[in-house]
């Protein structure tokens, strides 16, 4: 379109007229689009904005897109938009949500990672600044070692870990993230000082795997989803999971608790809404989430991503969140932040 009005030659007038017409059409379409995007219809036509506080490809992004898909599939909402607001462990997205005071059509993905990041980045926005809506699903943590590792049980590994407290390299996700919190909890339970363990942070579960397989680190901490495809006869073995009981489909992996280490940690994910909402607005959002969670397409989502259903409605989620914040604050302090 740029070139339309380029020439002022003999055909200039005609070209100008055509260019002008094109411009008018474009402008009209654009204005309609702006209007559409801003539209706040009613019922199933109402617009919903899902904020994923991470870049495409991560767990929060996935959750947001699954919700988007669910809302459309179940014909609950048609106009659903996913916005990625990546940065600082999710606290940029948290800050943005806190600033959307009074907007009743926004759901921001949250989770243990965000609770941890609030502490480790000294974020000025905290979970107190937003409205918790519901907890949706969890993934449990797992301790893995290379298949040829001498450690057969958590006890074997812990013994070596105690002996080489400050040198034994263990790998996991980024500093201050869920994996490090998991490693810290396990260390504390094993009698290793979480602050002095030799934790090698990687940017994701995949890289942790390479770290193990290239013999850079001796053990890896992550969520089951990161490693599940490599466990069954693959290059790594699982020593224990951080679930309260053995996980369906992975019954041969013992829990940490049954091996005598009281570590129960779920990388839970949920949704929060902006502050300053009226009680009925909160109820409406909660009802919407509740409806999805009960739908067949959500069952499919859980199955597909192998998330464990740990749905908690608002009241339950609020008290759970408070506990998690206290626990996280403690362990983050021990980790040395």
């Amino acid at each position: 379109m740029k070139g339309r009005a380029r020439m002022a030659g003999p055909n200039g007038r005609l070209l100008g007229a055509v260019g002008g017409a094109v411009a008018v059409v474009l402008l009209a379409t654009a204005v309609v689009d702006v209007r559409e995007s801003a539209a706040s219809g009613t019922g199933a036509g109402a617009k919903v904005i899902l904020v994923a506080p991470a870049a495409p490809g991560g767990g929060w992004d996935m959750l947001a897109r699954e919700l988007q898909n669910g809302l459309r599939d179940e014909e609950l909402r048609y106009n659903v938009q996913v916005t990625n607001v990546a940065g600082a462990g999710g606290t940029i997205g948290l800050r943005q949500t806190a600033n959307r005071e009074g907007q009743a059509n926004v759901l921001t993905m949250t989770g243990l990672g965000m609770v941890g990041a609030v502490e480790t980045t000294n974020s000025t926005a905290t979970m107190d600044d937003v409205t918790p809506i519901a907890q949706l699903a969890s993934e449990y943590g797992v301790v893995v070692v290379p298949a040829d590792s001498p450690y057969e049980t958590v006890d074997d590994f812990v013994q070596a870990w105690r002996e080489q407290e400050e040198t034994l390299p263990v790998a996991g996700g980024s500093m201050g993230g869920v994996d490090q919190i998991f490693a810290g909890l396990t260390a504390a339970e094993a009698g290793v000082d979480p602050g002095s363990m030799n934790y090698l942070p990687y940017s994701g579960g995949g890289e942790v795997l390479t770290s193990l397989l290239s013999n850079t680190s001796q053990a890896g901490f992550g969520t089951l989803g990161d490693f599940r495809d490599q466990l069954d006869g693959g290059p790594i073995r699982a020593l224990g999971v951080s679930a309260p009981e053995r996980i369906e489909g992975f019954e041969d992996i013992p829990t940490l608790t049954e091996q005598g280490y009281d570590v129960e940690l779920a990388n839970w994910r949920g949704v929060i809404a902006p502050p300053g909402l009226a009680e009925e607005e909160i109820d409406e959002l909660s009802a919407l989430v509740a409806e999805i969670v009960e739908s067949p397409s959500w069952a499919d989502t859980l199955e597909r991503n192998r998330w464990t259903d740990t749905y908690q409605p608002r009241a339950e989620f609020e008290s759970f969140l408070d506990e998690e914040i206290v626990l996280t604050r403690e362990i983050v302090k021990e980790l040395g932040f």
Partner: protein
Amino acid sequence: MSTREPLNTWLVGDDAPEREPDSQAQGTVATGTAPGQDASGAVADAPVEEAVLPAAAPDPETTPWTGPGAWVFPAVVLAFGLVALWGAATITAPDPTPPGPGFFPGVIGGLLVAVAVGMGVVNVRTARREKQALAEGRPGVSAKIPATEWSPVLIIALTLAAHIALLDFLGWILAGSMLFWGVAYAFGARHYLRDAIVALAMASAIQVGFSMGLGLTLPGGLVELIF
């Protein structure tokens, strides 16, 4: 440069003034820019050897800095270096393993400061030679950095700043059009109405493509309120 070097010299690079007059478009080129690029010469598939080129413009990368402006870039480099060193001294980590988070900033900061000093030394030497040359009645440093026309640069910078400041308020269509129009004006476009129509069309096209087509939100701003 010697044409018989067995391996090239990566680190040192080649010195343009000595480059063989080998191809079309010689006498360019600073990375990413095309200073001195003459539009007439260097046409694609013209017989290369016969392309008659006007005197090649000096390579700006080897043009020495003179006058007070000579100290601007060394100052920028020094500033970067000092900030890096300040960071190296103040960053604290929970558990610093041997090279802690301050190690790299320290090294980079130190090198930046050293490079800034080196640039200063070169400046002083250039100035001295220039003075000497003038005293002896010879021309000084032959190549100079071309003069800057500040007004278009300032217009663009201000347009950008205004665009950034008003983006959320005006919305993409209006703020984007303003940006397009302002930059076009800085580049000498003077058909105000036509420029405005093109600007509006461009901004609208982007709104349609990104928001409607790809689902990426652009701020609606005033337009949301008016329509």
